[in-house]
């Protein structure tokens, strides 16, 4: 069976590409799929620390494509999650150390072994971005509900289409229901309307993301995390299930808390 290469991109930096890659990768393995996460942000690698795998790196992506190191030697197996692997970026090389052609070959090889190849893309629209998307079958565009991020996301969608990618889906990250409710933040419909792309999911702003990242654990395993629940739903959608959007409860009142506790208990 042949896998699927999905590139996670955004244009603007700091909107949650790496967090999204780490959590979707983990959540997909929790659904029983085999997943490899590829960090293509050469020189500014971060997927390893977000996943808590920074101490296990021996070889990296540049060693594989240009250094004669076998893929199997460079892939880091995440012992916590069955079927989850990381191919780390090089930290000391240039952004363009992996060419578009090399990336295509690499993705082709990984597809044979894995159900999903998640490519964490560098910020920007330069060569590093173009190389990262070279082997992709589909794209996930991450954007936060702010003008700068939406503008960059629109540019990215244009570039993805120009590169021949037809399935580009949007994840709206760090939405704040309270701000949406009082009309001070663009909501889901606003974003879809402006960007005219398909929606893959919505992730609420959630402090547990920072707590999890501090510990080097994906937030999808943090109990009771709203963002974690959102990522798990998105993973199921990627896996082909029809899953409703995470309801964005505005008021985290006592009633809501009880309701959530019951939901967690009944799961």
């Amino acid at each position: 069976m042949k896998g699927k290469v999905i590139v996670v991109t955004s244009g603007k930096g700091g909107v949650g590409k790496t967090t999204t890659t780490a959590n979707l990768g983990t959540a997909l393995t929790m659904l029983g799929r085999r997943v490899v996460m590829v960090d293509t942000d050469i020189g500014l690698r971060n997927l390893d620390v977000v996943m808590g795998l920074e101490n296990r790196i021996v070889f990296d992506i540049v060693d594989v494509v240009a250094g004669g190191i076998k893929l199997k030697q460079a892939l880091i197996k995440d012992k916590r999650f069955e079927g989850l692997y990381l191919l780390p970026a090089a930290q000391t090389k240039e952004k363009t150390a992996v060419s578009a052609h090399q990336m295509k070959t690499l993705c082709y090889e990984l597809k044979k072994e894995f159900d999903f190849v998640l490519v964490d893309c560098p910020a920007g629209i330069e060569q590093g971005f173009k190389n990262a998307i070279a082997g992709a079958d589909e794209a996930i565009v991450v954007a936060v509900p702010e003008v700068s991020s939406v503008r960059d996301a629109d540019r990215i969608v244009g570039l993805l289409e120009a590169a021949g990618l037809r399935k580009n889906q949007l994840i709206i990250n760090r939405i704040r229901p309270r701000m949406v409710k009082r009309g001070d933040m663009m909501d889901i419909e606003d974003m879809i309307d402006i960007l005219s792309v398909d929606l893959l999911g919505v992730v609420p702003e959630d402090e547990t993301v920072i707590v999890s990242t501090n510990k080097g654990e994906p937030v999808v395993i943090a109990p009771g995390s709203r963002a974690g629940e959102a990522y798990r739903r998105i993973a199921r959608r990627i896996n082909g299930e029809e899953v409703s959007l995470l309801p964005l409860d505005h008021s985290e009142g006592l009633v809501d808390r009880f309701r959530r506790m019951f939901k967690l208990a009944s799961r």
Partner: protein
Amino acid sequence: MLEFLSRLFWRDRDRIGSKHVAKERLRLVLVHDRVNSCPQLLEALKEDLIRVIREYIEIDEDALDISFDNIDNTVALVANIPVLRIKKSIV
């Protein structure tokens, strides 16, 4: 007193959230971004316009100019097409 009461009750409804400003600004900026990142679009549009207009009017094709402009809160396609003469057969 009435003013105070109305302020108390209507404050939230009257207030227009900043997201509307964000949406409007984005709409304008994205039109320009999309056109600028695809110059072929304007060229193709220009050629098609010339082809249609030429059937009715003789125009100065070299001086034809089209662009997108912000007018109030909308984006307008502005075309400046110098007319040489109207074709007799149509009149």
